[in-house]
């Protein structure tokens, strides 16, 4: 498993970087926030991303995708992290399409995946039911009645939940909360009766929603996979998404660090550039080291997703490794981003605060450092 990029991958990364810098700079996030955008992303930019083929990056050719692998998708996400470009890539592609691929039957896949690639369908995935990530803690119930299931319960922190066409949710058909058995996956139309979707306004200005299901009836066709056996596909999907989010975080962390280093060279105090002060130099060098480790962790995890010989456990280990490491370093680097810029870093006029705000949401999303260290230890049998 090589840890250097192929020429194709480098080209992809460079073109993604230029696209984001030219078409989706941070000023877009600022505008979306100030306009209180309901979408949480820019529709026109998303259309361009679709034209670039980004939604189909990791989807099989037979479903209209380009089979460029998760490494390709990860590189794109990394570049979106550099400019904080929001889009349904995480919600609809990384989570939605992956869950369809992992759990859906042939009919569901061949009908829906091409629509996602073409940008005609937007999915969102509802996993958590409380303020902390806990995918096996499912209290939502799904009761079978004839050829229908009746779903009742709540879901929280659903990225792009309010703007999706369809929602994929986990619900319990048997078992106790926290048991992995008995979890089933369902697909709901956004306008299904009994479904309430409430947008939240979070600190990163993206779109996330809470969902209340009050006796929502869906046909049995809406079940993804086998009843009661949904957790494996869900967890694999989550691992893919965790690695994708870690890629995005990697882009942000590198961007913050680059801005710090530039500022250290430019800003003068007491007659010298502040980058000459050794205490700041050592902090910068330590961040550099940690970011190098982050780069390797993310690349290693992406490679693992693309490695046909890797097991689900291998992926789980790499996903928890990457998400734990990036969550930890993201906290340090985003804080240093403010501190090293001093007063100006605290002003809303300056961009660095957007990175800080996005960092904490990304850290929490799909499990924070503490969650993933715990999982990593369990996966290593201690």
């Amino acid at each position, binding site marked *: 498993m090589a840890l250097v990029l192929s020429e194709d991958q480098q080209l992809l990364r460079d073109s993604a970087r230029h696209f984001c810098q030219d078409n989706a700079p941070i000023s877009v996030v600022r505008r979306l926030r100030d306009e209180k955008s309901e979408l949480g992303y820019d529709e026109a930019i998303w259309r361009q991303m679709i034209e670039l083929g980004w939604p189909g990056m990791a989807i099989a050719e037979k479903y209209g995708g380009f089979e460029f692998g998760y490494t390709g998708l990860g590189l794109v996400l990394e570049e979106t992290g550099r400019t904080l470009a929001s889009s349904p890539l995480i919600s609809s592609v990384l989570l939605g399409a992956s869950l369809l691929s992992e759990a859906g039957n042939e009919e569901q896949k061949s009908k829906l995946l091409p629509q996602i690639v073409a940008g005609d369908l937007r999915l969102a995935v509802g996993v958590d039911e409380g303020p902390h990530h806990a995918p096996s803690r499912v209290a939502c119930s799904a009761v079978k009645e004839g050829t229908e299931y009746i779903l009742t319960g709540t879901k929280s922190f659903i990225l792009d939940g309010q703007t999706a066409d369809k929602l994929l949710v986990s619900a319990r058909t048997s078992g106790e909360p926290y048991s992995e058995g008995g979890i089933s996956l369902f697909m709901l139309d956004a306008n299904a009766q009994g479904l309430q979707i409430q*947008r939240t306004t979070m600190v990163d200005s993206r779109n996330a929603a809470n969902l209340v299901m009050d006796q929502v009836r869906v046909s049995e066709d809406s079940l993804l996979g086998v009843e009661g056996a949904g957790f494996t596909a869900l967890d694999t999907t989550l691992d893919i998404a965790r690695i994708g989010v870690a890629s995005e975080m990697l882009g942000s962390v590198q961007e913050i660090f680059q801005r710090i280093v530039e500022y250290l060279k430019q800003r003068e105090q007491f007659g010298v550039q502040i980058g000459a002060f050794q205490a700041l130099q050592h902090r910068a060098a330590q961040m550099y080291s940690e970011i190098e480790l982050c780069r390797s962790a993310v690349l290693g995890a992406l490679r693992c997703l693309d490695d046909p010989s890797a097991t689900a456990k291998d992926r789980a280990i790499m996903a928890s490794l990457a998400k734990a490491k990036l969550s930890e370093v993201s906290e340090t680097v985003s804080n240093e981003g403010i501190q090293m810029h001093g007063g100006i870093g605290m002003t809303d006029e300056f961009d660095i605060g957007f990175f800080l705000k996005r960092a904490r949401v990304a850290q*929490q999303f799909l499990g924070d450092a503490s969650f993933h260290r715990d999982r990593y230890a369990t996966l290593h049998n201690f």
Partner: protein
Amino acid sequence: MLALEQFRDSTRAWLEENCPPSMRTPMVPEEIVWGGRDALFANPESKLWLDRMADKGWTCPTWPAEYGGGGLSSEEAKILAEELGRINARVALTSFGISMLGPVLLEYGTHVQKMEHIPKIVRGEIRWCQGYSEPGSGSDLASLGTKAILEGDEYVVNGSKVWTSYADKADWIFCLVRTDFEVPKHSGISFLLFDMASKGVSTKPIQLISGSSPFCETFFDNVRVPAANLMGRLNEGWSIAKRLLQHERTMISGFGLTSGQGDRGGTTSTTASLEGAAMHYRGDKDRLSDPALRDQIAQFKIDSEAFALTSQRSSEESKQGGPTATSSMLKYYGCELNKRRYELLLKAMGSQGLGWDGDEFEEEELQVTREWLRSKANSIEGGTAEVQLNIVAKRVLGLPDMLSLINKK
């Protein structure tokens, strides 16, 4: 001791009679009294309370009675504070005039200046702001460029200041200006007082990452200030500035102290204590179910408690005249603690600690997000963490200064 006991009795009786009922309830942010020409009193009893306290000079208990202060000895002031605390009396007047300008004005001002300004500070009639930082000056405060040039019996002031708290609400400013351009930078600075209503003064509020803020940018365009408004000697304003900074530092290190008990203002809400929040947002009953977070919170509380003990020890030692842990160490550590506190609170609250707006979050939750963001400035304002560590290294530990070492060579 008899006199002091009598003082306590009479003070208690006076307070009993004069402190209005609503002034004995916990302060709410909207009712804080800042005074000034356009003073607002959301609660009419606040005005009553201020006036009564100001009549006795007890808004500034130890300041000389000659200038309207309370003229109390430090023992008497301590008793007054105890008696105020006993009935949970609110602070009658919050003011930079009291906490920052007053002490240096009493030390460096002329009799005429004191007669003019101190009584108005005591009574809350004039609200002051501080003109120190400038765009680009940062930690290197003395690099300031706002000019004051003497023309006849007036200084003409040009330049701008930044981070001026409540400049848009203040009546007067105490301001560092450059009055000599030929000498090393610390030597040409003077300390000037002037009216914010003067022609040529304008202000613009600064939006922070946490939302709106009391900070402003302040611009001076040919502002004419009477030469008599110079405080202290011409070109020797830097020593006044430094003295004033000590007061500010002591005030800010209090951040850490209030976080010392793990409380946010003594409320009984879910986010009042870290462990309470962590358990609430996990649905835990007896024991916090995330053991790594539990360990981190325990570590934080241990550090907070040790820090509170250190503040206490430092204040006792300074009373004893013994060696004290410096204000720089307390400022540094207190601010780091407060930042740590909010990072832990976010971890405790999960996605409910990341709200910005809207009905899906409690008011209290939204406030945590803003306070978390605001806390990032703790280690920047009032002297950065780096500056405090430099001061500890040089003044307390006696380590050599690289810049001066090299110059010596």
